[in-house]
């Protein structure tokens, strides 16, 4: 459902380790998914996207995995760095009566420990 004012879960990771952030999406008709990174005081920034005809997509140090069977999305960050500390949101996009709508997950705060 919609992300409405929920307390953010936190993932703490040691610098240099890999991070895995998970997201459960709501609509089986969603065909496009995006991960966003939001640093303090800024708007969310695009990290990586994936379409529903794929189950994996890799970027620079990031990988997104999509499991449509269980409506699950994950973001893997390799060799986590201090600059990766932020809140991460997943978003699903689907068509509603010919228009497209984004629904955002609740977000996960990633803390990188030195």
């Amino acid at each position, binding site marked *: 459902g919609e992300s*409405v004012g929920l*307390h953010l879960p936190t993932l703490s990771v040691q610098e240099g380790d890999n991070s895995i952030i998970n997201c459960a999406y709501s609509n089986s008709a969603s065909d496009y998914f*995006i991960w966003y990174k939001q640093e303090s005081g800024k708007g969310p920034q695009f990290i990586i996207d994936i379409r529903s005809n794929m189950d994996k997509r890799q970027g620079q140090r990031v990988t997104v995995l999509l499991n449509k069977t269980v409506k699950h999305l994950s973001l893997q960050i390799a060799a986590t760095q201090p600059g990766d500390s932020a809140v991460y949101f997943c978003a699903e996009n689907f068509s509603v009566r010919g228009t*497209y709508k984004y629904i955002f997950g609740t977000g996960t705060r990633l803390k990188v420990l030195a």
Partner: protein
Amino acid sequence: GAGVSQSPSNKVTEKGKDVELRCDPISGHTALYWYRQSLGQGLEFLIYFQGNSAPDKSGLPSDRFSAERTGGSVSTLTIQRTQQEDSAVYLCASSLLAGVAYFGPGTRLTVL
């Protein structure tokens, strides 16, 4: 190229006053979204525009909230008779019909 811009960046107002928040989307983006984010929390959907029409207003929290978009470009979110619970960061995003939504930096609204 220019991204999504929002103004003002910060707005402090007194309870009961009206405020207008502005969003300038990326040129050519037909879709425009407004979200609200309370401190340390997730994104709350407010309204979505496709061109100048708003097919989805389901997230507007009360009739004090309204939004319009003119010329398929600039959008204004108006909050009438502001209340303290309206204090939040208001984020605008724009996209092509089915593409990545790009966000502006937000407007931080504080209602005293």
